[in-house]
C-alpha cells in the first residue's frame, strides 16, 4: 500500500521548500492564505507543499477498512499519502496546504467512515519525548535487573570467596550506571520537592536507592557477604514501569484530544478605501471594516454593515443550526460565514472578543481543579514521613543496642528498600491504565488518571442540552414529502453545502437523485433549478418558524421540518446514573420552550436561558453544598463550566474548546458512555483501594523482618516482585470494567 501512496498525483515532500510563487508573493504568505481559505480542492501539483492532518476514525475494524481508507484517500487529488494507525483508530493524511479539514473529513465520509479531526499539536512532541525517556530508563533498568539477578542467583546458590566477590563487582559495574541513568526521574522529582520544603514518594525512593547502592558498593569493595544491587535495580524497574504506564495513558488521551482556541481566523481581509489588504487578527482595531467571504471565519467581533448571510455559530454554541444575519446584526469572532460575503465593522478585536473572554473565564474556572490532589500523592503524604521515621529510628535503635554503624546503616537501608512503595507505585497507574484501555475500546477517551479518580467521586451531573443530550445536528422530518418528490429533493440538497441541505442529503442516502439542471444557490434563500422545464427550488419557507425548509416543484410546495433528536440511550443513561447515585439535571443556554420537551422526555429538572457565568454559578452552588459535579457539555459556552466542574465529559462532536476543557471525551452518538465511564471509574477506585490494602499487608509482614535485620537480598527481591505481581494481576481484572 506504500505503492498506492506513492502513486498519488502529487510530488509529496519534493514540493517542500519551493521558492516564491508567481506575483512576487512569498511562498510563506501564499501558503498561509491558501491554508485558511477553503477553496474547493485545489490540486496544484508542483507548487504544493504538504501538511499532515490526523483524524480519529472509530469505525476502522478490519484489514479491509485499512485498505479502503488508505487507497481511497491516496487516489484523491491533493492527497500525497494516508496512513492508518489501527491501534489508535486514526488516519494520518499527508496533503497539500489548502485542502482543509472539512473536505478531508467529507472525503473519509464518502469512503463510509465517520471521522473526527484531531489536532497535530507540536506541543505533543514534548510530552511524547518525556514518556520515551521514561521508557528508555525502564528498558535499561529491566536489562540491568535481569543481569544483576543472574549474578545474585549464583551468589544465593552458594557461590563464595573469589567468585562471590567477582559477581558482586560485576553487579556493581552494571548497577551503578543504571542507577545513575534510570534513577534520574526520581532524583529530579525528589530534589525539586525537597527544595520547596516538601516531601513526596520520590524522596524515600531516592534516599533508599542511593543509600543501598552506596552501601553495597562498600560491601563489594571490602569483600562483604551481602550486596543489594539487585534490590536497588529491581526497585527502579518496577517503579519506572508504574511511571511509564501513567505517562502512556496521558499520551494516548492527548492523541485523542488536543485543541486550542485556534479556530478563530488568523486574520481578515481589511477594506481601506475600497482596496483589500490581508491583516493579521492581532492587528485589527475597532472601527476597521473587514470583508468576510463565504466560508470564512470571522477574526473579530463586529456589526454587519453590508450583506446578508447565514452564520454558523457551532464553534461558540455547539449548535449547528445556522442563524440569519443581516445589516446591523452583531457577529462574533470564530463564527463561520456560510453563504454570502459580509462587510463587517469591527467592534472588538484580539483579547477583547467574546471568544477571548470565554477563554479567560475557562482558565480561571480550571484553577480549582488543579488543586485536586491525586490519590497516590495523598497516600505518599502519609507514607513518606512514616518511612523516614521508621528507617531513621531503626538506625538509632540498632546503634544504641550496640551494633556497629555499618550494620545499623545496612538495616536502615533494608527498611527503606522493603518499605519502598513498589507495589504502592504500581497500585494506582496499573489499575487506571487498564480501565482507560477498556474505556477506550468502549469509546471514551480519558485524559489522565486523575480524571478517573474525580469521575469516581461525582455525585451530581449537569447536562447541557443542545449537542449533549441531543445530537446537536438537525434531522429532517421527511413525512411531508411524498416518495416521488424525494429524488428532486436530493438533487437540490446535495448541490449545497448548507448544513440543512447536507442533513437532507444524508437522510436521503440510497435514493436516486432526479436530474435537475441549472442548479444555482441563491444567497439567503436556497437552491433553484429546473427539471424537465418545471422550476424547482429548495429554500427558506416564507413563514419560517424554527428550522424548516420548503421544497417547491412547480406550484406544489412540500414542507421539510427539522428537529434535533435525543441521543440514543439518553434515557437509559440518566436512569443508570441515578442508580449509581448520581442525580442529573439540565443546564441549558436555550429558551425554556426548546428545553421543555427534552426535560420531559428524560424526566429531568432543567434550568434554562443560562449564560456561561450562570452555569459557573450553578456549579459553584452545588460544590458549596458539598456535591462533586460531573459536567457534560459540548459548546464553547460550556467551556468554563466544563473547566469548573469537579470532572467533565464532552462528546467528540463538541467544539474544540469543549473537548479541550473536558476530562474525558466520548465518541459516537450514544450517551451511554457517560454512565459507563462513571461506573468504570468507581470500579477502578475499588481496585486501587484493594491494591493499597495489599501493599500495606505486605509491609506489615516485611517491615518487622527488616527491623530485626533479617532481610537478606533474597528476601527483599522475593517480597518486592511478589507484591508487585499481585498488584498488577489485581488491576488486570479491570479489563472488563467498561460495561
Amino acid at each position, binding site marked *: 500500500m506504500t505503492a498506492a501512496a506513492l502513486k498519488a498525483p502529487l510530488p509529496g515532500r519534493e514540493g517542500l521548500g519551493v521558492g516564491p510563487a508567481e506575483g512576487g508573493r512569498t511562498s510563506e504568505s501564499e501558503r498561509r492564505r491558501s491554508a485558511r481559505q477553503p477553496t474547493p480542492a485545489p490540486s496544484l501539483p508542483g507548487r504544493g507543499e504538504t501538511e499532515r492532518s490526523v483524524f480519529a476514525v472509530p469505525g476502522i475494524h*478490519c484489514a479491509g477498512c485499512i485498505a479502503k481508507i488508505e487507497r481511497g484517500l491516496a487516489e484523491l487529488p491533493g492527497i500525497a499519502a494516508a496512513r492508518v494507525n489501527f491501534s489508535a483508530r486514526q488516519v494520518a493524511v499527508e496533503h497539500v496546504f489548502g485542502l482543509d479539514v472539512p473536505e478531508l473529513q467529507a472525503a473519509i465520509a464518502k469512503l463510509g467512515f465517520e471521522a473526527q479531526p484531531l489536532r497535530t499539536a507540536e506541543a505533543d512532541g514534548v510530552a511524547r519525548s518525556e514518556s520515551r525517556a521514561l521508557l528508555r530508563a525502564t528498558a535499561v533498568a529491566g536489562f540491568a535487573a535481569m*543481569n544483576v539477578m543472574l549474578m545474585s542467583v549464583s551468589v544465593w546458590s552458594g557461590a563464595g570467596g573469589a567468585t562471590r566477590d567477582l559477581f558482586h563487582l560485576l553487579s556493581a559495574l552494571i548497577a551503578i550506571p543504571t542507577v545513575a541513568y534510570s534513577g534520574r526521574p526520581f532524583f529530579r522529582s525528589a530534589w525539586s520537592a525537597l527544595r520547596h520544603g516538601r516531601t513526596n514518594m520520590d524522596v524515600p525512593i531516592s534516599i533508599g536507592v542511593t543509600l543501598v547502592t552506596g552501601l553495597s558498593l562498600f560491601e563489594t569493595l571490602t569483600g562483604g557477604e551481602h550486596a543489594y544491587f539487585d534490590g536497588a535495580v529491581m526497585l527502579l524497574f518496577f517503579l519506572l514501569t508504574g511511571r511509564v504506564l501513567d505517562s502512556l495513558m496521558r499520551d494516548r488521551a492527548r492523541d485523542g484530544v488536543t485543541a486550542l482556541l485556534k479556530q478563530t481566523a488568523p486574520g481578515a481581509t481589511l477594506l481601506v478605501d475600497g482596496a483589500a489588504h490581508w491583516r493579521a487578527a492581532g492587528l485589527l482595531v475597532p472601527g476597521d471594516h473587514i470583508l468576510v467571504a463565504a466560508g470564512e471565519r470571522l477574526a473579530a467581533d463586529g456589526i454587519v454593515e453590508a450583506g446578508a448571510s447565514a452564520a454558523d455559530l457551532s464553534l461558540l454554541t455547539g449548535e449547528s443550526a445556522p442563524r440569519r444575519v443581516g445589516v446591523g446584526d452583531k457577529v462574533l469572532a470564530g463564527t463561520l460565514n456560510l453563504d454570502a460575503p459580509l462587510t463587517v465593522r469591527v467592534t472588538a478585536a484580539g483579547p477583547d472578543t467574546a471568544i477571548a473572554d470565554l477563554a479567560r473565564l475557562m482558565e480561571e474556572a480550571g484553577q480549582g481543579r488543579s488543586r485536586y490532589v491525586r490519590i497516590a500523592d495523598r497516600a505518599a503524604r502519609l507514607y513518606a514521613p512514616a518511612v523516614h521515621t521508621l528507617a531513621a529510628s531503626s538506625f538509632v535503635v540498632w546503634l544504641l543496642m550496640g551494633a556497629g554503624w555499618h550494620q545499623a546503616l545496612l538495616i536502615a537501608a533494608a527498611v527503606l528498600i522493603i518499605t519502598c512503595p513498589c507495589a504502592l507505585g504500581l497500585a494506582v497507574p496499573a489499575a487506571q491504565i487498564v480501565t482507560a484501555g477498556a474505556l477506550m475500546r468502549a469509546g471514551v477517551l480519558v485524559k489522565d488518571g486523575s480524571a478517573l479518580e474525580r469521575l469516581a467521586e461525582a455525585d451530581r451531573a449537569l447536562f447541557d442540552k443542545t449537542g449533549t443530550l441531543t445530537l446537536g445536528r438537525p434531522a429532517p422530518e421527511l413525512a411531508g414529502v411524498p416518495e416521488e418528490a424525494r429524488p428532486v429533493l436530493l438533487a437540490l440538497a446535495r448541490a449545497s453545502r448548507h448544513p440543512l441541505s447536507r442533513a437532507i442529503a444524508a437522510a436521503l442516502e440510497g435514493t436516486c437523485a432526479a436530474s435537475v439542471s441549472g442548479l444555482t444557490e441563491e444567497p439567503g434563500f436556497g437552491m433553484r433549478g429546473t427539471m424537465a422545464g418545471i422550476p424547482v427550488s429548495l429554500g427558506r419557507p416564507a413563514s419560517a418558524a424554527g428550522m424548516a425548509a420548503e421544497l417547491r416543484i412547480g406550484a406544489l410546495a412540500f414542507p421539510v421540518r427539522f428537529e434535533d433528536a435525543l441521543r440514543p440511550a439518553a434515557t437509559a443513561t440518566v436512569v443508570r446514573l441515578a442508580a449509581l447515585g448520581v442525580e442529573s439535571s439540565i443546564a441549558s443556554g436555550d429558551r425554556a420552550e426548546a428545553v421543555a420537551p427534552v426535560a420531559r422526555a428524560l424526566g429531568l429538572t432543567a434550568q434554562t436561558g443560562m449564560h456561561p457565568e450562570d452555569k459557573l454559578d450553578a456549579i459553584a452552588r452545588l460544590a458549596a453544598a458539598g456535591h462533586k459535579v460531573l459536567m457534560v457539555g459540548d459548546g464553547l459556552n460550556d467551556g468554563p463550566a466544563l473547566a469548573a466542574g469537579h470532572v467533565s465529559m464532552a462528546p467528540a462532536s463538541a467544539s474544540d474548546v469543549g473537548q479541550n476543557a473536558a476530562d474525558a471525551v466520548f465518541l459516537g452518538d450514544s450517551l451511554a458512555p457517560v454512565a459507563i465511564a462513571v461506573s468504570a471509574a468507581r470500579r477502578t477506585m475499588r481496585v486501587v483501594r484493594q491494591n493499597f490494602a495489599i501493599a500495606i499487608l505486605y509491609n506489615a509482614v516485611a517491615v518487622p523482618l527488616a527491623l530485626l535485620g533479617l532481610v537478606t537480598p533474597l528476601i527483599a527481591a522475593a517480597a518486592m516482585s511478589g507484591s508487585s505481581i499481585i498488584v498488577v494481576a489485581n488491576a488486570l481484572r479491570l479489563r472488563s470494567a467498561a460495561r
Partner: protein
Amino acid sequence: MTGLALLIPLALFLGLSGLAAFFWAMKAGQFEDMDGAALRILIDEDPS
C-alpha cells in the same frame, strides 16, 4: 572458572543487544501501530 570468562561476557552481550534492539525499535516507530501490522498482511497488494 574459565567457563565464566566466556559465559558472563556472552550473557552481557546478548542482554545489551536486546536493549539496543529495543532502543532501535522504539526510535523507528515499531510500536506505533501494534494491532495494525497484524492486519496489514491480509491486504492484497495493488493489482497494478
